């Protein structure tokens, strides 16, 4: 199976129809295992049971960046290789990425509540994720603002790539801004390596969430392809003369 095989939307639809149930099943199994392991992981001696938020928070945070990476590759696909499904992939990924980023923020702030005493602290990491969230929303707004998907695709691809280049700069600036104002962050995972009893469930959860993303992404791409077909059918219908 190569990218060329996938270039044909019809074949893509046929293939994903076969793959999706398996992917969904694998996601559910892995998520169940991960959640069970997370629940049975020991409490932290400092943070108590709240540490378990980590098992949800970290995979979401990981995916918030991973999805932007996927969109950047898809954007290259749009601009450089002109792969016909690239902009479908980029468009379908944006809302999912935004959702993961939002969950990362939400769990982060719920985690922060017992640690900091407030739901929100302008902590360098959380702030960077917040900016990432805003960029996702902006990208979604761009997709919606332009009617014609192929025209929106190029603009969104450029914005995604600029974002990918800018993200490290933003991260660096936020870190610098943050240390300028508050010398030490309240919460640190610490230099010490994570205990095995935490690490394994965390890895399982990370893989499970990644699978979840792949499943959702493929399903969203199918929807997008079908939506575009409906649109072009409607346009054909509009141009037909009434009997």
């Amino acid at each position, binding site marked *: 199976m190569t990218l060329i095989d996938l270039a044909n939307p019809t074949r893509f639809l046929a293939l994903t129809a076969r793959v999706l149930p398996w992917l969904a099943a694998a996601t559910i199994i892995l998520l169940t295992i991960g959640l069970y392991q997370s629940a049975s992981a020991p409490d932290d001696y400092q943070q108590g049971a709240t540490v378990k938020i980590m098992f949800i928070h970290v995979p979401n945070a990981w995916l918030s960046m991973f999805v932007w990476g996927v969109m950047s590759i898809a954007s290259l696909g749009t601009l450089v290789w002109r792969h016909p499904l690239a902009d479908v992939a980029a468009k379908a990924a944006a809302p999912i990425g935004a959702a993961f980023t939002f969950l990362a923020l939400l769990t982060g702030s719920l985690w922060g509540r017992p640690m900091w005493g407030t739901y929100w602290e302008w902590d360098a990491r959380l702030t960077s994720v917040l900016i990432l969230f805003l960029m996702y929303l902006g990208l979604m707004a761009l997709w919606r603002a332009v009617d014609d998907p192929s025209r929106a695709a190029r603009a969104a691809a450029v914005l995604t790539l600029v974002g990918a280049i800018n993200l490290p700069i933003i991260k660096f600036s936020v870190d610098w801004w943050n240390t300028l104002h508050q010398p030490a962050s309240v919460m640190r995972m610490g230099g010490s390596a994570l205990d095995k009893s935490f690490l394994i469930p965390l890895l399982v959860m990370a893989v499970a969430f990644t699978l979840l993303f792949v499943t959702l992404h493929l399903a969203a791409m199918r929807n997008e392809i079908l939506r575009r077909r409906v649109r072009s059918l*409607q346009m054909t*219908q*509009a141009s037909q003369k*009434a009997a």
Partner: protein
Amino acid sequence: MSGPNKGEMRLSGQGLRCVRGGREVFAGLDFAAGSGETVAVVGRNGSGKTSLLRLIAGLLVPAGGTIALEGGDAELTLPEQCHYLGHRDALKPALSVAENLTFWADFLGGERFDAAESLAKVGLDHAIHLPAGFLSAGQRRRLSLARLLTVRRPVWLLDEPTNALDVAGQDMFGGLMREHLAAGGMIVAATHAPLGIESRELRIGGVV
């Protein structure tokens, strides 16, 4: 002055003068149209054809002269009894064909109507639920025409109405205009192309 017969209406303008941007477009213009009559306004570009229509529609204020509709609804002003079909179609691309038509019917206070029937008359019944943004220029014009059929008003002010319409569309439109005139309506149309119906010519701005 003899008033119009019972049931007859008469739209007339006397000594109209129009000034736009400090320039006199036309002056001393008279016109009249009774029930079932059409005035075709002709003249070169910039002679003030559109301005005349907009004067009648109340969208411009005349620098002189008067416009009156005799025999109309006494409770309504002249613009409220006019349909103005300008260059622009007053359609929202994001709304469906039916939503566009229903909005104007509700806003302009039309009778209870069947959107499918009005749209069938202008040949758009296949596109009722499609977004208006998918329509071609000619189809958008047809959708605007459906507005004229849905909300009944005695005076139609048409600015280059057959622009963008194909031959079949022009035939269809000719039929609609004849129906309107037969019902006692009046038409004032600015046009370069022949309208396809019997009309009185009003030449403004000298020789073409």
